[in-house]
């Protein structure tokens, strides 16, 4: 099946570091992204478009933290044409950004939401697809004519997943873990901020307990390294130091520690990651990649 036939349209990423035009401010960049979205909608026909899907902070795509005001501007365009914001909270949901949901932190107004991962703190597999009451009502009102919503999994609502997720949410709320994540997140950011001075680091991106470093061949020109080998080396070096990080496309190193971490764990991340970066710089220099 050709990709176009899926009915999936693409608009630009909210990645200021990589996607901004020369001299463009963050505000101008956000305005341009909103305008591009509107032009796409008008070109396709607004009444053919159901929804826009977005993670609050794009995770596996590089931990891309949108500039201030991004979702407010996007939301205004979507509202103009009756297009639903479909919020993928699989990574950001349940405290990751220091708030209950990423939507809360970034002022998104979704009518649909996908949750998983921290929903059960990964003790057992479970997910939740959530829709607003007005959408559910339209579906229910039409059911007599359209028939059953013939979708479901053997393990939809498995009692083990439900009991565990329910308990996990109780623990989050009882122990104020979303606020704890915000406090630890600020501490992590205070450590990561100085990484921008490292010769390999082009961008430091972080919000809550989520972060990424982009490793570049030339900081002045933002020249990227080829392939993923530099990030892979750095992740392997961190692993040897006793720290798990994840190399992502674009030679980005992602961090997403458990919400229960304390200051000493952030210190441990900082020390081990810095050593890994220094080893990576040695290797890059020996290889003549920089």
């Amino acid at each position, binding site marked *: *099946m050709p990709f176009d036939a899926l009915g*999936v349209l693409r608009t630009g990423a909210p990645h200021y570091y990589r996607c901004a035009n020369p001299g463009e401010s963050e505000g101008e960049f956000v305005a341009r992204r909103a305008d591009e979205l509107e032009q796409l909608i008008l070109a396709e026909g607004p009444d053919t478009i159901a*929804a826009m899907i977005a*993670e609050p902070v794009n995770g596996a*795509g590089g931990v891309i933290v949108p500039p201030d005001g991004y979702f407010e501007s996007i939301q205004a365009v979507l509202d103009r044409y009756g297009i639903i914001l479909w919020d993928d909270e699989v990574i950001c949901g349940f405290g990751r950004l220091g708030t209950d949901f990423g939507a809360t932190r970034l002022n998104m107004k979704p009518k649909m939401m996908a949750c998983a991962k921290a929903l059960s*703190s990964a003790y*057992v597999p479970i997910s939740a697809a959530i829709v607003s009451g007005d959408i559910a009502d339209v579906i229910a009102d039409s059911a007599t004519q359209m028939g059953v919503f013939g979708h479901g999994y053997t393990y939809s609502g498995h009692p083990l997943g439900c009991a565990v997720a329910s308990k996990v949410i109780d623990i989050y709320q009882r122990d104020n873990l979303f606020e704890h994540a915000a406090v630890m997140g600020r501490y992590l950011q205070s450590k990561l901020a100085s990484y921008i001075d490292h010769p390999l680091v082009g961008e430091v991106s972080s919000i809550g307990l989520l972060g990424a470093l982009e490793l570049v061949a030339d900081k002045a020109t933002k020249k990227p390294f080829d392939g993923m080998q530099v990030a892979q080396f750095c992740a392997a070096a961190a692993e040897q130091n006793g*720290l798990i990080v994840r190399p992502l496309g674009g030679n980005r190193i992602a961090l997403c520690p458990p919400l229960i971490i304390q200051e000493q764990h952030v210190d441990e991340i900082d020390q081990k990651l810095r050593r890994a970066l220094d080893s990576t710089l040695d290797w890059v220099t020996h290889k003549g990649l920089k």
Partner: protein
Amino acid sequence: MRLPGHAEATQCGCLAGGELSVTFTITDNDTLGTPAMTAMIYPTTNPSATETMVVARGEGPYIFDKAGKRYLEGMAGLWCTALGYGNEEIIETATRQMRELSFSHMFSGKTHPAAIELADKLAAMVPIENAQVFLGNSGSDANDTLMKLIRYYAAASGQPQRTKIIAREKGLSRRHTGVGCTHRISPKSHPLSIAV
């Protein structure tokens, strides 16, 4: 070439010649009892690559490999282990639930207390008005479900043509493509008619 047994990264550093030096040590399969690792197709892994780490146990924010080396889990597994490992309250809850009711499905209006409690909790906490919850197994299938609901909603609201989805560059194209490929739902009907 695929190697038998487990391969563990035991050394990593920069050699004088500048080669990427990650040294793998092959160990035996005794802990698993069978040569099961070589029969595995791994997710999001080069199919010709070999295993790099056997994770044996977890404790708080740490995991331990088979040799006992400790790692701070700076990625919470795959962005997911928010409460860390070995939480006794959760283990106790799981044990109690399995003893009480180890399975019950949700088809045709059947339900059970743990599901109702969870749906009510979620509906009360999400920033969505009068939220309604569909439960599944993984984030990918939650998004698949929403894709189906969107199409059902489009038909139900008299706009069956309204099915396109806007995604973003650098978005999770793999998951989105999966969403699109696996659910070719007739906008006028309901997914019951589709053999999946």
